[in-house]
């Protein structure tokens, strides 16, 4: 038959479609075939009964016999459908499961190891995915930038009103740009005022992000004008809690700082932060024309206009910076400071990238160790099965078929491991979110489809690696040791070499993890021993925010504090109370101020130095226990006519090393027209820039200018819940319109500052422990196997006079050689990788020899223990029996 090409193609297409249908509808087709056969038998039986006069039962029996075994026909039928390979796959899998079941010890330990490795990796991947890979929840997030002031590669800060207005006036770069200013203020929606984070935003901020209101509307340009009616947008959670529903909130009045703001809109459900600014209350920011360049507290976000590249935006903003610099030169002399756009994503992730990088690196090492461990187990298993496989070859199994068997087996193993791993991963991710270091966006991490795909991919790769050697050995083995290999249980030199390499590799991979965990632990311990500058144990703090409505001037605030301090001091057990605008040990730059030394000013056009600059009452020093070293503290006469400051010893050493600091004069805040500020005293250091930071501080007396938001510090002999409640109640009684936070003992605040290294240390410590455990199990397994394989040899040696000690030594030496080799390679890897950690360390260098020596010693000690156990068993070999079993 000579068919046309078209006809052939059509026929081929039909066949392919047919086969595909057969595959997809396999169960349905099987059912149909069964039904068809059943009908055949039934009809045949009826026919026999009718034509031959048989009883129905006899007819059925005959019909069935005539048809033969139904299963067999179904099988043939399926063959005709071209489904052989699917069945083969299923039978291979069944075989693999049976084979794995025969060795439950091996199977279970492999699955547990793989589940831990894959699970931990998947959990960290879930975190990495959320933090580093997933897009921000804004349309075209690649167009979004945060705008900073930047004067050095690592020094950047927020914008001022003057900067924001300038950027808004530049229409070429951004399609929308806006700013938001965060602060904590007393907010009263329904009921008593409460201190809450609020974020005052311009309309451009919402426009840039593309945020829409779920109810009502967001700000528009008319709301940004000074003097426009004050309006506010609420989060859905806040609106629902205060008014019952989003719709009910519209038109209501919210008191912020005692001033009424009309609710015009509610954000969509679930939106609790915008551009990483977390707030429930978003009043309109109405930027008034400023009189100077600073202060800098505005987070500005812009959306690049279509077709404007980040580079072009950077150039435009640099030109803009140059244009506005002369306007404010009198008060702001840092000509190097340029408005600089940074991708919003990068600005939000910040240091999170390096933290996640460390975790990903750590967990990757654990996974590699897990794979090496299972691969080495698999190797032993493969050598043990050489006879079985040889037998199969003799019985006619093709090599391809054996490869398929082995590959199926390791894939079944890793897939089960991956399935268990996903469960571990879910648990691991909640653990990561709970005890892990703080990383922006980590809270959003979920194990989604991408994470599942990742787990499956990891499992596939693991399966291939784990199963590679047994398969490769099929091709090396040849027929030489086909039916014979009973004695060479050890599996020959090649297998032994590969196995030793796996064992050494596990130690090499474990060492960097141990080193990392060790360095973080040292950091943590050093930080815990850093003196914050005060005794935190009997110190209580809470925040007070006074509404601007009732406290318009200094006299009103000062009078509030006089009454409050009198009431608190009257509480039994209280030794003193004070206020400060700054929180220790980490004020997060909230009270940073720039200054210039009158006797040693900076060069024109360069940045002035800055320092934490708390405004405190005179009692602050006594309450905190900060010692006066030189000069004097504040006096009631320090009211601002001749401004004075007290500096910390670190500050004095920093700017006047070896000289007298008292009596020096400063220009504060770049105000050249203000009277000079005089240093009147030097006090002991208190940390305001974190425990790792310097002790620099400049204190202004509160009497020179009172602030409506303050941290209250109370020295008290008791820190019971009752005492904390009493302190709050007494403050509440002074003025109910003041909003108060929950009191906290300062030990918690100090502890909070070491949270990051503690969390990171915990996680890396877990990884390191798992790694060390796996490596120990690996070497233990290998040596046990060696001992079992060399029983006879050991027996002979002992019969010939070798003492137990020599045998133990022989085995231990052999094991320790691999461990030491691994540790050596590991040290090199650790030294190379330690730089990753450098940013997280304090008081210890990344290549700290003491830490490296300690962790190496720990590693070798664990290895020694793991070697000693099988060696002991070797020494207990009974020579007579060992030789007899030959």
């Amino acid at each position, binding site marked *: *038959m000579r068919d046309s090409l078209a006809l052939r193609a059509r*026929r081929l297409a*039909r*066949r392919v479609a*047919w086969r595909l249908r057969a595959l997809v509808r396999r169960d349905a087709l099987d059912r*149909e*075939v069964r*039904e*068809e*056969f059943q*009908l*055949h038998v*039934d*009809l*045949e039986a*009826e*026919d026999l009964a009718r034509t031959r006069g048989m009883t129905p039962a006899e007819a059925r029996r005959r019909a069935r016999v*005539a*048809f*033969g075994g139904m299963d*067999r*026909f179904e099988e*043939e*039928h399926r*063959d*005709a*459908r071209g489904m052989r390979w699917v069945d083969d796959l299923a039978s291979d899998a069944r075989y693999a499961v049976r084979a794995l079941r025969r060795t439950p010890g091996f199977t279970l330990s492999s699955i547990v190891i793989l589940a831990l490795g894959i699970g931990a990796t998947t959990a960290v991947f879930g975190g990495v995915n959320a933090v580093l890979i997933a897009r921000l929840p804004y349309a075209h997030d690649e167009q979004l930038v945060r705008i900073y002031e930047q004067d050095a590669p690592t020094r950047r800060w927020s914008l001022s009103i003057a900067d924001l207005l300038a950027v808004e006036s530049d229409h070429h770069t951004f399609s929308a740009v806006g700013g938001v200013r965060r602060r904590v203020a007393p907010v009263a929606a329904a009921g008593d005022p409460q201190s809450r984070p609020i974020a005052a935003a311009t309309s451009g901020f919402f426009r840039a992000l593309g945020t829409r209101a779920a109810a009502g509307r967001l700000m528009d340009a008319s709301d940004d004008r000074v003097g426009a009616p004050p309006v506010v947008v609420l989060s859905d959670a806040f609106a629902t809690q205060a008014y019952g529903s989003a719709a009910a909130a519209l038109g209501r009045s919210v008191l912020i700082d005692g001033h009424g703001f009309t609710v015009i809109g509610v954000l969509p459900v679930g939106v609790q932060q915008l551009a990483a600014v977390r707030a429930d209350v978003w009043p309109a920011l109405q930027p008034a024309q400023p009189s100077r360049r600073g202060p800098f507290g505005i987070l500005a976000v812009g959306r690049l206009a279509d077709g404007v590249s980040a580079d072009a935006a950077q150039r435009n903003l640099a030109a803009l910076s140059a244009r506005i610099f002369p306007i404010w030169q009198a008060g702001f002399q840092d000509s190097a400071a340029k408005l600089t756009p940074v991708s919003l994503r990068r600005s939000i992730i910040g240091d999170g990238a390096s933290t996640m990088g460390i975790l990903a690196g750590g967990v990757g090492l654990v996974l590699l160790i897990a794979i090496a461990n299972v691969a080495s187990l698999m190797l032993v298993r493969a050598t043990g099965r050489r006879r079985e496989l040889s037998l199969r070859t003799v019985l006619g199994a093709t090599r391809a078929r054996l490869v398929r068997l082995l590959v199926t087996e390791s894939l079944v193993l890793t897939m089960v491991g991956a399935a268990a791993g996903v469960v571990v991963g879910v648990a691991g991710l909640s653990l990561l979110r709970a005890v892990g270091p703080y990383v922006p966006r980590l809270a959003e991490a979920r194990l989604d489809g991408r994470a599942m795909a990742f787990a499956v991919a990891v499992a596939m790769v693991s399966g291939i690696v784990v199963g590679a050697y047994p398969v490769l050995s099929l091709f090396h083995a040849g027929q030489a040791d086909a039916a014979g290999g009973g004695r060479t249980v050890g599996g020959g030199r090649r297998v032994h070499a590969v196995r030793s390499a796996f064992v050494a590799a596990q130690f090499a991979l474990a060492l960097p993890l141990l080193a990392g965990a060790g360095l973080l632990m040292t950091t943590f311990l050093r930080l815990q021993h850093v003196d914050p500058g005060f005794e935190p144990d009997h110190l209580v703090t809470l925040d007070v925010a006074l509404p601007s409505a009732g406290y318009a001037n200094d006299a009103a605030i000062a009078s509030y504090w006089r009454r409050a301090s009198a009431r608190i001091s009257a509480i039994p057990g209280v030794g003193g109370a004070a206020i400060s605008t700054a929180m220790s040990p980490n004020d997060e730059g909230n009270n940073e101020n720039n200054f210039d030394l009158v006797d040693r000013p900076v060069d024109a056009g360069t940045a002035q130095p800055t320092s934490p600059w708390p405004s405190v009452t005179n009692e602050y020093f006594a309450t905190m226990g900060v010692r006066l070293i030189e000069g004097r503290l504040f006096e009631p006469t320090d009211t601002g006519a001749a401004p004075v400051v007290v500096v910390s010893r670190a500050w004095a050493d920093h700017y006047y090393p070896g000289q007298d600091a008292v009596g020096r004069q400063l220009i504060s805040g770049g105000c050249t027209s203000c009277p000079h500020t005089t240093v009147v005293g030097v006090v002991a250091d208190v940390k305001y820039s974190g425990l790792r930071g310097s002790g620099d501080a400049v204190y202004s007396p509160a009497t020179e200018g009172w602030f409506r938001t303050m941290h209250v510090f109370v020295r008290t002999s008791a820190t019971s819940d009752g005492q904390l409640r009493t302190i709050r109640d007494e403050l509440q009684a002074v003025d109910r319109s003041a909003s108060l936070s929950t009191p906290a003992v300062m030990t918690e605040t100090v502890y909070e500052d070491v949270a990051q290294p503690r969390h990171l240390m915990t996680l890396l410590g877990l990884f390191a422990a798992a790694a060390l455990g796996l490596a120990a199990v690996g070497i233990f397994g290998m040596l046990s196997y060696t001992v079992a394989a060399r029983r006879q040899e050991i027996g002979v040696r002992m019969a010939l006079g070798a003492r137990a000690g020599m045998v133990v030594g022989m085995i231990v030496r052999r094991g320790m050689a691999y461990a030491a080799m691994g540790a050596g390679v590991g040290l090199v890897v650790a030294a190379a990788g330690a730089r990753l950690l450098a940013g997280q360390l304090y008081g210890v260098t990344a290549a700290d020899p003491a830490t490296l020596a300690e962790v190496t010693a720990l590693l070798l000690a664990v290895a020694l223990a793991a070697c000693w156990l099988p060696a002991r068993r070797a020494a207990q070999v009974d020579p007579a029996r060992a030789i007899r079993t030959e």
Partner: protein
Amino acid sequence: MSDRADLLQGTLDLLILKTLLFGPLHGWGISKRLRQLSGDVLDVGQGSLYPALYRIEERGWVSAEWGTSPEGRRAKFYALTALGRRQFAAERAEWRVFATAVDQVLEAT
């Protein structure tokens, strides 16, 4: 597979196609019709019948559809397609040539 098997298989296909010339039949109907037409000489084993049916369905010579049998049972009916009709004509011609040839050989004196 040997040539002999191919030949027999081809013959079975031809016979099945023939039974379907008069209209759609289910599996048992085909085997019954074959027995009737051959005077109970040809009793095709089910083990050959169904795989053959499946094969020729795959080739597109017959189409299968579920319906209700004269006995009131759900049954799979096989019907000849246009392609099947052409195939039958071609195979019958081939068979005639073949049978005649075999006959000539056997009758040769």
